[in-house]
C-alpha cells in the first residue's frame, strides 16, 4: 500500500515536471494557420521550416548563444581563480569573502539588473560607447560568478592539500602544478559550474533586458511577441533546445557512469 502511494506520488511529480514540455513538443508539430497552442489540427513540420527562415529569431538565438558561451567561459575562468584564492584564505576572511560573493545570488534579480544597467550606462557615457552585446556578457559573467565559485569550492575542500605541495616538491612550478594536479582534481566542479553558468545565461531575461541596449536576446525577443501571439516557431525552437540539452545530459551521464565504474574497479584492486 505504502509503496503504491509513493509510486503514484512519484508519477505525479514527474507528470507535473514534464507534461508542459510534452505539450510544447507536441504543439511544435501542429499544422495550424492561427498559431494555435490549444487546437490540434494535424502533423506538420512547417514551424521548423519557418524557424530556419526567420532571420530575427535566428539572430536573437545567435546573440544568446554567443553571450551564453562567452559568459560561461568568462565566469568559469574568473570563478576558478577566485575559488582557489578563497580556498586558501584563513577563517574570518574566507567567511567574509564568501558572504560577499553569495550576496548577488540572494539579491533579487531586478535589483541586480537595474544596478548593473545604471553602472554600465554611466561607464558607457564616460567612454562614448553604447550598451550592446559586450555589456550583456559582462552582466552575465557578474551574476554567474557566485554559482561557479560555489560549485568549485567543495571540490577544492575534498582535494588532498598535500598533492599540490608534492607536485611542487617534485619540481613543478606553482602554475604548472595547478594545471597538472589541482585542475584535474576539481575538473568536475569546474564543468558543473560552467554548464550552470551557460544555462543561467541562456534563459536569463531580467538582467539581459536591462543591460541589452539595442541587442536582443532570445528570451527578450520571445517576450516581445506576447502582444500578438507567441508563434509555434518558439515551440519548435524550444523542442530543439530541449533535445540538444537532453542529449548532452545523456552523454555526460553515460561518461560519468563509465568513469565511476572504472574508479570503483581501481578501488577494488
Amino acid at each position: 500500500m505504502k509503496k503504491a502511494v509513493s509510486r503514484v506520488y512519484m508519477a505525479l511529480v514527474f507528470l507535473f515536471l514534464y507534461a508542459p514540455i510534452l505539450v510544447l513538443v507536441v504543439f511544435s508539430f501542429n499544422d495550424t494557420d492561427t498559431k494555435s497552442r490549444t487546437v490540434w489540427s494535424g502533423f506538420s513540420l512547417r514551424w521548423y521550416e519557418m524557424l530556419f527562415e526567420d532571420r530575427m529569431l535566428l539572430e536573437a538565438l545567435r546573440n544568446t548563444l554567443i553571450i551564453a558561451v562567452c559568459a560561461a567561459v568568462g565566469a568559469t575562468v574568473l570563478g576558478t581563480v577566485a575559488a582557489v584564492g578563497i580556498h586558501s584564505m584563513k577563517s574570518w576572511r574566507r567567511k567574509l569573502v564568501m558572504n560577499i560573493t553569495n550576496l548577488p545570488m540572494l539579491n533579487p534579480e531586478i535589483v541586480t539588473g537595474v544596478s548593473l544597467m545604471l553602472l554600465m550606462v554611466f561607464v558607457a557615457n564616460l567612454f562614448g560607447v553604447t550598451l550592446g552585446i559586450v555589456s550583456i556578457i559582462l552582466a552575465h559573467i557578474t551574476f554567474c560568478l557566485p554559482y561557479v565559485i560555489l560549485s568549485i569550492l567543495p571540490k577544492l575542500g575534498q582535494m588532498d592539500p598535500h598533492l599540490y605541495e608534492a607536485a611542487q616538491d617534485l619540481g613543478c612550478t606553482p602554475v604548472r602544478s595547478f594545471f597538472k594536479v589541482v585542475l584535474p582534481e576539481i575538473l568536475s566542479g569546474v564543468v558543473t559550474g560552467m554548464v550552470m553558468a551557460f544555462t543561467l545565461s541562456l534563459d536569463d531575461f531580467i538582467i539581459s533586458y536591462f543591460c541589452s541596449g539595442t541587442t536582443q536576446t532570445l528570451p527578450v525577443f520571445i517576450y516581445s511577441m506576447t502582444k500578438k501571439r507567441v508563434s509555434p516557431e518558439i515551440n519548435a525552437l524550444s523542442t530543439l533546445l530541449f533535445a540538444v540539452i537532453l542529449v548532452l545530459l545523456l552523454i555526460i551521464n553515460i561518461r560519468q557512469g563509465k568513469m565511476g565504474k572504472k574508479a570503483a574497479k581501481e578501488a577494488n584492486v
Partner: protein
Amino acid sequence: MRRKTKLAALFLAALLPCAGAPVFAAEETEEAVPLTGEKIYVYNWGEYIADGTDGSLDVNAEFTRRTGIEVDYSTFDTNESLYSKLVSGGASYDVIIPSDYMVSRMINEGMLEKLNFDNIPNFRYIDEEYRNMGYDPTNEYSVPYTWGLVGIFYNKQYVTEEIDSWDILWEEKYAGKILMFDNPRDAFGIAQKRLSFSFNSTDEDEWIQAAVLLKEQKPLLQMYVMDQIFDKMESGEAWLAPYYAGDAAVLVESNENIGFVIPTEQGTNFFVDAMCIPKGCRNKSGAEAYINFLCDPEIAAANMEYIGYSTPESAAKELLPEEVVNNPIYYPPEEVIANSEVFVDLPQETALQLDALWAEVKMGGPGDSMTLILTLAGFFLLYVAVVVYKKWKRKREL
C-alpha cells in the same frame, strides 16, 4: 497564407517595370545599392513588420538593398517598456513606433525630435483623416504606421443574440466565459465608453464610476488576459473577449464559429501606432529615409498584409486584396470610425489615479487588503501557537 504569397508576387511585379519577365527575378534585376556603412536602430512591436517568413516581403532587407543603410531591428512588448528603455538611457534608437498616447506623452516630455518632412515625401500618401490626430495635433513628430479599432470577439455557437454594445461583457448569463484586457487604459476604456465618457477625461468622478463598473464586472470574468485570448477563444474556453481588431482577425478568418463586432453606438477606441524619431538618435537622415520607405504604398501594403492591421494610406489599400479591403474588421464603415476616440496622454494626477484604481479593481482594493492582513495575522498566530506548544511539550518531557 496564400494571400501573402500572392501579394509578395504582386509587389515584386510592381517593382519590375518590364512586364513579361519572370516575377521573382526582381531581386536580381534591380541592383542593390552597396552598403554605405550607415546603420539605423529600429525599435518596434514584436511581430510588427513583414520579415520574409511565410512568403512575405522582408521589409528591412529590402530597405538595406535600396538604400545601403543597414537596419538593427529589435522589438518590445508594451509602450511602457519602450518608454522605460528610452528613459533609462540604456539604448538609443533612430526609429521607434509607439502608440498614440505614448506619442503624446513623449512629445510632452520632450523626448521626440521634430521630423523633417522634406525627407519624407511619401507622407503625402497618408490620408487626410489620419493626420493631425489628437496625440500629435500639429503632426510634427509622428507619421502613422498602422491603425485599428477595439471590438468584441464572440463565439457564435454560444452567444447567439445580437451584440450592439459593451453591455454584453457585463451579462450574467455568460459569467465565467468573459475575458477582459489586462491593461488599465484598455480595460477602463471599455467601461468609460459604456458610461459614454471620454477616454481622456480628467474628471476624477468619471474614473471612479468606471472603476465601480469594472469591479461589478470582475466576478463575471474568467480572467484578465492579453495574448491568451487567442487560445481561449479558439478552444471555446471563453466566449466573449474585447481585443484589437487586426490582431485577432486571423481567428475570424480561420474559425467560422468566431465573430467580431464593434459597438458602434457607444463608440470604441481608435488606436494608431506611429513612427517617431527619439531625441538622441544617431542617424536622423537615415531614420527619415526609413520612415519614408515604410510610407511607400507598396511597402505599406506588404506590411499590412503580414501584420493584419489597417493602413492609413489609400494608395496602399488599393494594392491589398479586395477581400481584405472590404472586410469590416480591417476597414470598418465610416460611421464606426467617426464614433471612435484616440487615447491621449493623461495628466500626471489622472494617471496616478488610474493606476490606483486599476490596482483596486484587480486586487480588490482596500477592503481586500484587510483580509490579507487578517490572513497574515492568522498565520503568525498559528506559528506562535506551534512554537509555544513545542516549548510547553519539551518542558513537560524534562
